[in-house]
Structures are given as structure tokens and as C-alpha cells.
């Protein structure tokens, strides 16, 4: 059976050897330039093809991903050279258009064409809306694919390799002659993905675009992507069961996994290593791998190494890098297969083997009548999300709720609960979940000040006993009387907890296990339903996922995440939410005061929601 290898190259930056005034550039920053007399260009390409062929034998079928910035200034000569390069790769590596995926980068947008169109149209519309910016890329695209480039679409092309579909997207919506950040129109993305959803049902999906939606080099949380749009796009992708995003733009390679979602950057194939701030040219190759436990892409990173030896080329040699040493991941797991267990039933004389899936053993409560399997179907989500954007209450920075609970974002829910109409909207949103999910409960608890405000309407309308408590990590900031429920559990079996944000469910479990163990005793309370206005975690949402199950504990232990090992198993909780906004958690552990530069050297403001001195 033939093996598959996906070659990921990016940021070739094929450039002119001269400036616009035809003065020669002192230094041509890319190994790819349009000077036909520069023999290094061909040699560079030769060596690239050579390393591929020597590493991957004839049993391999190749596919190629080109994630943008193919040219440096989107000039015709640059595209012409790029066409030659791509055609040569296709020919040498036996790749046809069905296995070639090209997406444009911001450097493939012609800034002068964009500006000219904007000015000649008397600036009638937004500068980034002029299709002229893509004219030259369009010509290149047609030359390669013999099909038109549709500048109005988000999804440009899909390529299929076994059970994986790579979906190429255009992230240049807001690029104009002044540059800009990656941006994809959310509504359009949803529409286009919905159209192909059925077609790719069962496939592992990988989104491919140019702009880095997470940084590996830049010191921010948004990469080179519009801050708000980034969250929207990631949410949409996850809701359509994408597992991976692959991109270029940053000339530093990188890869990471966060809660089973992968971010992979290929670095730059073309840009030279000129200063100590530059990264060496690089590219990646992914091999499809499958065994009994999982289906994945094995990642291989190639760097250009210049040994300075007198018998080597001016650019050095390609070599495979040790990913672990470079803090990258070896493997992108697309499908984790369920473990199967064989059980024997004893029959005298014969043995019978029966197999049952492990999942059926778990006691995670499943709610049949949960209407918002996809929260994007919830009209309250859309309205509240837009209010969050209008009020600018999704903050980036450093936020600490405890030594073990830290994040780089904060949703300022208290500000959303200022305007009386917003307050009512949010209260109605909570009640809507209760009613549409037909949640039955005997008692309601409002958690925190915001949870208390949100819960009043539900408590009144449903006419159920109600109390309120502080967040479990803020007990010490509250007077004694505030820490009490002021009512005993004399028969409440089903409890509804309403709060503003749930991230990993820890605050809820602390409430149940540490703060009110008597009230929530398992002999009394059978079901716990938690409704939050926002879910800020990254887990692909499944009902009951953020319960503390034995499986979750073991998974976390395997990842060396010991944060929750002390927690008892808790499987009574059913989580619901109105809206989802992912909050990036801080990667530092409880030793952050020593390991996090920002905290240690006070490099930036750290907002503490607790008294760290206590």
C-alpha cells in the first residue's frame, strides 16, 4: 500500500532583485528571486527536491500545501517565477492539482493595485473590499489550476488524503495597501462550511490558511489575527469538528496542542537567515500514520543548516530537526480510537469472547433533550456575543483567580450586567436554557454576584427555593453570613446552579466537594445542573465532558497535568451554557512566580482577583 506524505511549505517570498526604481537591492532577503542569472535559486530548489526524495522513497505519494506569501510584493514577475517553481515541484514530485493546495498570503495581495482602485473609485467603499488587490494572484492561480480564483469565497479548495480533508481558506479579507491582520468573515465561514458538512462527514478536517492564528514568535496572544475574529473563527472551526489549523506567515516554525486542538506553523521556505533574529528556512512534512490506538499525522521538521564548510553550497544543507528539543509536537492525533476490551464468558467446553466498548461503562449523564447541541444555533448566543464585542468586555492580559487558575483573557461579565436591557437579555438567556432543555430541579443556587443577578429571574419564574453563594475561590473575601446557604438540604435531589462563566468546572466541583459537602452529599443530591452564560474552555463540547471522571483524571495524568488528581470523582454534573468564548489559559503552573518572566520581573500588569498574600 502506498504511503502518504504532505509537504507543507510557506512564505517563499519570491522577490524582485531590484526596487521599483530598478536600483538593485543590496541584499535579496529570499532564496527565491526573479533573477534568472542567479544560479543559487535553482540550486536551492534542487536541494529542496533532493532532500524530499532522499528522505521519502518511491513508495510515497506527495501532496503539497502552500500557505501563502508565495511572492514578496505580488508583482507579475514574481508570480511568473513562482509559477515556474510550483510547476517544477509538481513535475519532480509527481503532484497533480488534486493534491496541491495553494492559499494566498498578505504579500500576495498587490498593495498598489488595491490603493489605485480605492482612489480611482473615490474611496466609495472600504479599502480592503477592492477585488483588484487579487488581480495578479488570480492570474497566477489560473495559470496553476486552470480555474478562476474566486476572491469572494472563504473556502478556496479542498484536497483529500485518505480520511483527511485539508480545506484551504482565504484569510486576507481585511488586507489592504496598509497591511492588516488575518480575518475571515464568520457568517460566511459558517455558511460555506455548512454547505460541505455532509460531504466531509466522517473526515478529519484541517483548516489551511496563511495568517498565524496563534503566535510562536510574537509576544501576544492573537498572532497576526484580528483579536475578536480570532475567537470567532476558532469557535466556528471547532464547532464543525476541525482538529487542526495549519498556517505560515510567521517565519518561525511551531506547533502545539491545546485541549486536543492543534496549531501548526511551517515557517518560511524562502527567507534567508541573515541576522540572529531570523529563523532558518524551514518546511514540514506530515506522514499519515495509523495503528490500533489512533490515526494521526507524524510531523517532520526540516531546517536549513549552514555548516560554513568550503565544499557546501552558500545556503547550507537541509536536515531533519528534533521536534522535542524545539518544543514542538511529534504527532497530530486526528482520531483517538476507543480501547476495546475482551471479556470471556464461561461456557463449559468452549470459550466465547464478547467485546464491549469502554464508553458504555462510563456513567456520564446524557441529556437527550438538549436543544443547543451546537450553541451557534442559540439566538441568545449571537445577541450576547455581539454585545460583548460592542462593550469591548473581552480583555486580553494577565488575569489570576488563584495560584492555579490563571488566564490571558477575561470576560468582564459584570459590565455586561449594567444596562437593564442587557441584564434582562442575559436572565432570559439562562431561563431559555432551563425551559428548552426541560431541566427539572428542586433548588437553585446563584454563584457569585453575577450568578446571583442572573439567577433571580429563573428562581422567581420557576418558583423554586433559592439561595446564593460566593465563588469557591473567593470565600475568604466574604462575610460569614454570605458563605452560608441559610437552608438545609431536607430533600432537594436535583440542584440547579447558575453562574456567569464556567471554564473547566473546577469552581463548581470545589463548591460541591469543599464548601458545601453536606448539602451536596451523594445520598441526597442525585443530579446537578449547571448553567453558565459563557463557557470559556476549549474542549470540543460534549455533555458531561468537564465532569471529573476516572478517564479524565487518567488522561491528565498521562499529560503530566496533576492539578486535579486530588479531586474526587464527580459525575453528577450536567453543564449547559448560552455562549462560548474561549479564554487562553496561562501555561505556567503553580511555580509561576519563579518561571513566568512577567510575574517575576513585573514586566506587565497582572490583575489579581484574589488576595495573593493570603
Amino acid at each position, binding site marked *: 500500500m502506498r504511503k502518504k506524505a504532505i509537504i507543507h511549505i510557506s512564505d517563499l517570498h519570491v522577490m524582485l532583485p531590484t526596487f521599483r526604481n530598478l536600483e538593485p537591492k543590496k541584499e535579496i532577503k529570499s532564496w527565491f528571486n526573479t533573477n534568472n542569472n542567479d544560479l543559487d535559486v535553482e540550486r536551492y530548489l534542487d536541494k529542496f527536491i533532493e532532500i524530499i526524495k532522499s528522505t521519502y522513497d518511491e513508495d510515497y505519494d506527495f501532496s503539497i500545501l502552500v500557505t501563502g506569501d508565495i511572492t514578496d510584493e505580488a508583482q507579475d514577475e514574481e508570480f511568473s517565477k513562482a509559477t515556474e517553481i510550483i510547476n517544477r515541484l509538481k513535475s519532480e514530485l509527481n503532484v497533480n492539482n488534486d493534491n496541491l493546495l495553494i492559499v494566498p498570503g498578505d504579500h500576495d495581495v498587490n498593495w498598489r493595485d488595491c490603493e489605485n482602485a480605492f482612489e480611482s473609485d473615490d474611496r466609495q467603499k472600504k479599502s480592503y473590499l477592492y477585488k483588484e488587490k487579487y488581480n495578479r494572484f488570480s492570474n497566477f492561480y489560473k495559470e496553476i489550476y486552470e480555474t478562476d480564483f474566486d476572491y469572494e469565497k472563504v473556502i478556496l479548495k479542498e484536497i483529500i488524503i485518505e480520511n483527511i480533508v485539508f480545506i484551504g481558506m482565504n484569510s486576507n479579507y481585511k488586507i489592504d495597501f496598509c497591511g492588516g491582520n488575518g480575518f475571515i468573515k464568520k457568517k460566511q465561514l459558517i455558511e460555506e462550511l455548512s454547505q460541505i458538512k455532509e460531504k466531509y462527514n466522517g473526515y478529519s478536517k484541517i483548516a489551511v490558511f496563511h495568517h498565524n492564528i496563534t503566535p510562536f514568535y510574537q509576544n501576544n496572544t492573537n498572532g497576526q489575527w484580528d483579536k475578536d475574529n480570532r475567537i470567532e473563527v476558532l469557535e466556528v472551526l471547532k464547532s464543525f469538528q476541525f482538529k487542526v489549523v495549519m498556517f505560515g506567515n510567521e517565519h518561525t516554525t511551531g506547533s502545539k496542542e491545546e485541549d486536543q486542538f492543534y496549531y501548526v506553523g511551517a515557517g518560511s521556505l524562502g527567507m534567508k537567515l541573515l541576522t540572529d533574529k531570523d529563523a532558518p528556512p524551514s518546511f514540514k512534512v506530515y506522514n499519515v500514520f495509523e495503528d490500533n490506538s489512533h490515526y494521526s499525522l507524524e510531523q517532520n521538521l526540516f531546517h536549513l543548516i549552514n555548516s560554513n564548510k568550503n565544499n557546501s553550497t552558500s545556503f547550507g544543507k537541509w536536515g531533519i530537526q528534533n521536534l522535542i528539543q524545539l518544543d514542538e509536537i511529534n504527532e497530530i492525533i486526528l482520531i483517538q480510537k476507543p480501547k476495546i476490551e475482551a471479556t470471556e464468558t464461561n461456557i463449559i467446553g468452549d470459550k466465547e469472547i464478547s467485546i464491549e466498548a469502554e464508553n458504555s461503562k462510563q456513567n456520564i449523564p446524557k441529556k437527550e433533550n438538549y436543544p443547543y447541541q451546537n450553541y451557534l444555533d442559540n439566538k441568545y448566543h449571537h445577541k450576547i456575543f455581539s454585545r460583548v464585542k460592542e462593550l469591548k468586555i473581552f480583555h486580553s492580559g494577565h488575569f489570576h483567580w488563584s495560584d492555579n487558575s490563571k488566564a490571558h483573557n477575561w470576560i468582564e461579565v459584570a459590565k455586561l450586567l449594567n444596562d437593564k436591557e442587557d441584564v434582562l437579555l442575559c436572565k432570559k438567556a439562562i431561563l431559555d436554557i432551563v425551559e428548552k432543555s426541560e431541566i427539572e430541579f428542586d433548588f437553585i443556587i446563584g454563584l457569585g454576584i453575577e450568578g446571583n443577578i442572573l439567577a433571580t429571574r429563573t428562581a422567581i419564574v420557576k418558583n423554586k427555593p433559592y439561595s446564593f453563594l460566593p465563588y469557591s475561590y473567593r470565600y475568604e473575601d466574604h462575610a460569614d453570613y*454570605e458563605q452560608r446557604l441559610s437552608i438545609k438540604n431536607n430533600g432537594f435531589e436535583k440542584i440547579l446552579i447558575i453562574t456567569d462563566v464556567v471554564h473547566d468546572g473546577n469552581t463548581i466541583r470545589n463548591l460541591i466537594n469543599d464548601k458545601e459537602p453536606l448539602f451536596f452529599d451523594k445520598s441526597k443530591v442525585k443530579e446537578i445542573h449547571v448553567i453558565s452564560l459563557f463557557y470559556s474552555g476549549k474542549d470540543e463540547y460534549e455533555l458531561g465532558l468537564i465532569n471529573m471522571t476516572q478517564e479524565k483524571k487518567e488522561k491528565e495524568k498521562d499529560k503530566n497535568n496533576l492539578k486535579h488528581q486530588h479531586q474526587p470523582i464527580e459525575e453528577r454534573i450536567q453543564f449547559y451554557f448560552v455562549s462560548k468564548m474561549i479564554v487562553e489559559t496561562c501555561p505556567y503552573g503553580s511555580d509561576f512566580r519563579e518561571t513566568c518572566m512577567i510575574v517575576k520581573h513585573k514586566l506587565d500588569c497582572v490583575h*489579581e482577583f484574589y488576595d495573593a498574600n493570603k
Partner: protein
Amino acid sequence: MVISAIFNKTTESVYINLHAEQSFTGSFLIFNDDIENNIIEGVYQSLLKEDTVKRINDFFDSEKKTKLLVLDFNYIDDIQLNKPDLFVSLKEKTELLTFININKEIIDKVGVSFFNSPSNITNGNIYEQFFLTEKECNEIQILGTDELFENVFLQKLIECKETQDSGKKKHHSSSVYLPVFLDLKKMMINERPFFIYVVYMLAMKMRIKWEIDDLDEQENNKPILFCQNLNSSYIASILSSFLKLDLLSMDHIGPINKVYSNLKNRIQEGLNYIVISDLVCLGTEVKICKNVINYSGGKYIGNASIVRVETLHPEDDYSNYEYIFKITKENNSEIGYVIETALMQ
């Protein structure tokens, strides 16, 4: 649920405040799934609607038949009723149904004007008492609703009383000792419908005190309800619905304030703020809130609380406040509220 039902055991009577019930319906019970329409009626509605009367009817289905049911129409100017027999149905749930503070037009609309008890008392266009009977009812004593409410509140407040052990006596925000603690949270949790009525009463008092009806939303005159702990946020959340006012919650003037000083002030310059409290003892927390508001450019215009302890003689007290119940020298013998200092111990 009926929030304003006050039972008087002595006279075997029940009193219901219809404006409170209509405000409750209009603020909480109207079903509205339109996400763009987030406007409610609050306490500003003076039209009694059918679903409110129906709710009261349903309430009495599960209650024992009383001798006297009094419906107070104060603040109700008109009635919208497709089924006038709802009042007939109510009449059957009590031995005697009585309306108080009802205008003659409503009597006609309800269709009960033919009842002509000689004990009815009119005052211009208003019936101060209207008995739905032809008989004389001189032996029936209609109690003053304010006094009735105050007596019931006092009883429920006493039920919230806790004698503190010596370790807990220190007040959580003022430098004094409180041997007796009034846990209003207990009332909020265990007397839910009644407490909502208490908040309604506070809303009506605030409406008058700060002339909220006359304030123009467009000119940003309407006050914002400021709360800073769990109890006050519960009260403020309900008040916000009743009074249709914006909220501002600050989660304890404690460590979290560090965030607000860095992330733009949430207190808006020039806007009016009313601090909401459950119980005001020495006013320490109110003062802190007042200072935070004023220092941030807002305007503190007063404090609204459920209970207020009278620590100054009225002539010496210049604070601008409103309350539901004041603990005074006169009523404190039943409550036994004490503020101690080390000098006294």
C-alpha cells in the same frame, strides 16, 4: 406565587396589594422570547390585567377559605379584564371579599356596582372600602395596610435574629461588636415571595424619594443601582426589574478593585448612583461606596436599604436615604439589637 399576601390570624383575613402583584407580573412573569425586546413594565403600570387576577385566583385554590379577603387597589387606575367572573370566582374563595382604594370606574368595569353595602366608604371618586355584599359590615375591621406590613416584617425580622457567640461578634466592616446579628439572607431565602414584596415596597418608596418617574432616560438622569455584595446584588437585581434602572455591581471593595483601576473606570462621570444595602448599621460600607462613586466622577445621591439602624436622632442625620424598616429605640425592645465597643465590654 403571590408575593403580597399578608395573613392576619386574629381577624382571619388576607390582604393583597394588587399593584404589587401587577408589578410582579409585568416585571417577571410576562413571557417574552423576543431577544430584541428587553423592556418590561416594572412598577410603572397602573393597569390591572387579567393574568394577575387569574394568578391570585389560582393561589387561593390551594389556600383555606378565609373570613375576609381584602384587595388593595392603591395605584391601580384601570382594569383590563375579558373575564369579569374572575372576581366572582375570588369571591367564592372567601366569606367576604372587599376592595379598598378602588375608583368607581373599576367597580363598574368589574360589574359589581350593584353591591351596595351601607358600610362602604367613599371619598370623592374613590371607595376607601367597598364590600362585595349588600349587608352591613360594621363589625369588620379593615386594618391599615402599612401597619400590617410593618408588623409582619418585624416578626419575620425577629426570626432572622442570631445571637452571636463571642468569637463572631465583631462586625465584618465596622469596628464594633454586634452580639445580635440580623441575617437578612435568611429572610431572602426562607420568605421568598414576601421578600420580593419587600423589595417592591422599597421600589415604590425610592420612586417617590428620588422622583424617578419624572427623570428622563435620554438625559442620563435616571439613577444607577450600585451594589457590592451578594445580599445587595440580590436586592438590586429585583429592584432593577421593578424600577427599570441600570445596575452596577462591584464585587466587594477589596482586591478586585485593582482590576477596575486598570481597566477603565466603570463608574461613569456625572451619572447618579444609589447604593443598595440589605442592612445599614453604622453606614461604613455605604460611606466607602459613596467615596468610590464620588471619587470616580459619579454622583452618589443616596442609599436604599431594607433595614436601617437608627444610630442618630433624626434631627442630626443628614444622610439621604430610604428604607423599609428602621430599628428605633421604640421597636428595639422586641429585636434586641445592640452595638458594642470595647469600652462597654
